């Protein structure tokens, strides 16, 4: 069983197997996404039309932004269950702020999200309470705050330029797609090419070792939750711009869908492993499934939850198996 003690060829084999397993973990979702797109395209002629693809991606932007932050937090070794409620609160704050101009309407939700992340992060890093408890409590509190502020929903008055941000096109591409792609590119850059990103991986991989190696664990944790909260706030602002309204229940369930997207994309819930491209593939795969379900007239939207749940469950089981293979 112990490859380490064996002769050289055995060891090489073990390394190759580990490498293949690693590739499946990080790139599997992209492969599944491409296959799914080909299958869907051959069954539904309209599927691969530019308009439909644009629909999938723009609809995925809001979840996609949240999933970036969620991916950061999961790689760090935590969870952020407060993001869904933060999106809802973000839409409400944007609706309140719009009369004062598009700048506060865009920035205030982000700032609110960062503040929430700061509180979550401090509670988690300082008191060492379990992340899922702290952020679950935040989920409740934020949802309550959104309802208290806006009731069920409120209209964004005179959206003007603010509305344009989420509805106009730039060089023929929807602004939302531009924002999504830019956000993922930036996220990948931060994660893979900055000391902050390296610190996130290190803490998720082995928190004690990271501390010993000189990483300021508390600060990185707090900052990571701030990133997640800020992105949820941005997602809320854009959603308000898109829908011209603040809806307290907007983003309901994003906390779980973003976790599902990340995990399907090969981000390990045990922390320390994951890629931005994988997470994006996970988001698009969920979007694609929703789109296909809509194309099949006879299937109701109720199947979307089943599909994403099944994918999540399979991903978790496959990852558990792969991780075990890698270790042995």
């Amino acid at each position: 069983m112990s490859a380490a003690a064996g002769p050289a060829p055995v060891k090489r084999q073990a390394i190759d197997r580990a490498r293949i397993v690693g590739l499946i973990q990080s790139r599997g979702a992209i492969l599944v996404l491409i296959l799914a797109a080909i299958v869907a395209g051959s069954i539904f002629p309209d599927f691969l039309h530019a308009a439909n693809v644009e629909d999938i991606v723009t609809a995925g932007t809001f979840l996609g932004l949240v999933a970036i932050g969620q991916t950061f937090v999961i790689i760090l070794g935590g969870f952020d269950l407060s993001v869904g409620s933060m999106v809802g609160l973000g839409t409400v704050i944007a609706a309140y702020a719009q009369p004062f101009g598009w700048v506060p309407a865009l920035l205030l939700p982000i700032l609110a999200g960062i503040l929430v992340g700061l509180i979550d992060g401090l509670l988690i890093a300082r008191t060492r309470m379990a992340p899922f408890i702290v952020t679950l409590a935040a989920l409740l509190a934020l949802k309550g705050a959104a309802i208290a502020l806006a009731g069920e929903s409120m209209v964004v008055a005179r959206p003007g330029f603010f509305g344009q941000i989420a509805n106009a096109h730039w060089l023929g591409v929807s602004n939302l797609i531009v924002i999504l792609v830019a956000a993922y590119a930036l996220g990948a850059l931060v994660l893979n090419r900055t000391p902050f990103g390296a610190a996130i991986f290190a803490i998720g991989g082995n928190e004690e070792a990271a501390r010993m190696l000189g990483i300021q664990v508390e600060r990185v944790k707090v900052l990571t939750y701030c990133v997640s909260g800020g992105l949820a706030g941005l997602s809320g602002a854009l959603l308000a711009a898109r829908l011209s309204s603040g809806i307290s229940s907007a983003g309901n369930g994003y906390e779980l869908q973003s976790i599902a997207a990340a995990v399907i994309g090969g981000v390990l819930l045990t922390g320390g492993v994951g890629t931005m491209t994988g997470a994006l593939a996970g988001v698009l795969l969920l979007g694609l499934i929703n789109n296909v379900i809509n194309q099949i007239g006879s299937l109701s939207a109720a199947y979307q939850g089943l599909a994403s749940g099944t994918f999540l469950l399979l991903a978790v089981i496959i990852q558990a198996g792969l991780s075990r293979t890698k270790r042995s």
Partner: protein
Amino acid sequence: MSEHAAEAAPSAPGSTPRAGRSDGAWIRASSVYIAFAALVILDLIVTPGFRNPAVIRSLLFDSAPVILIALGQSLAIGTRGIDLSVGSVMALSSSVIGISLSLGQGASITFGIGAGLACGILNGLLIAVLRIDPLISSLSLLVAARGLAQALLGGARMDLPFAGPIPWLGAATISVIPVTALIALGAAILFAFVVKRTAPGHYAIYAGASRTAAFLAGQPVRATLAFVYGLSGLLAGIAGLFATARLGAADPNYIGVQFELDAIAAAVIGGTPLSGGRISVVGTIFGVLLLEVLDASFIMNDISSTYAQILKAAFIVGALYLQRAGG
């Protein structure tokens, strides 16, 4: 000091209070009863209509399913695990009851509870055999079971007939006490017996106190975990039946939403630490009652239930913080 019996892990009912317990620990252990009593007294004074039997009845109707899932939750937490799937499993049980109504209500009850048990066993196998962290496996089931529940009923609500055993469960009372609450109480007593007096219950507590020591003592640690999560699923299945009966409809979008949070909160507030190795059955039940009375107090005083949510969140964080302070 009757609560003592209920908290002392495998060591037993009727035992003498342990030596060396500080006053601080005593206050933590009994804080749920103090908080419950204080809230009830406050309500009796300020809340109009709180003494009305209808209020008590409705409160108990709402509490019954939550008590069931909170019991399962407390055992999972006692093994130093967690079960996030209970709310969704309730919804699945509800949907299965809905689609199998045509087979007769008796059969649909069996299928609904069976669906809960099946979910629990699946969760238990993921944890015990594939060794997936309970937080992760039950989170996946939370998403998947809700999705399946919605798909089974096509996302719609399905009203139940007005006659038969299920509607009866949703309305029957003995004096002001709902039958479902009595069943929940019976289940709690049985549950307490299992935990305090039987080998599987003991094993669960041992596994939470020290996995390695339990393994070296020759205990069936993995089988125990499978049993614990299976039991939690079974209880969630019954809770789904109760919630469906009370609502008068199978509704996968409504039933059990965020109930996992209430279950965890009740267990934690009731004195079952997240660090495992201890479980308080009576405390858990009072934890549920406390949360339910809290909700009712807000509603009856015409304060938005959203504030109740915020307060509940604060309660959970506060209870956990107290636990930490107690080491």
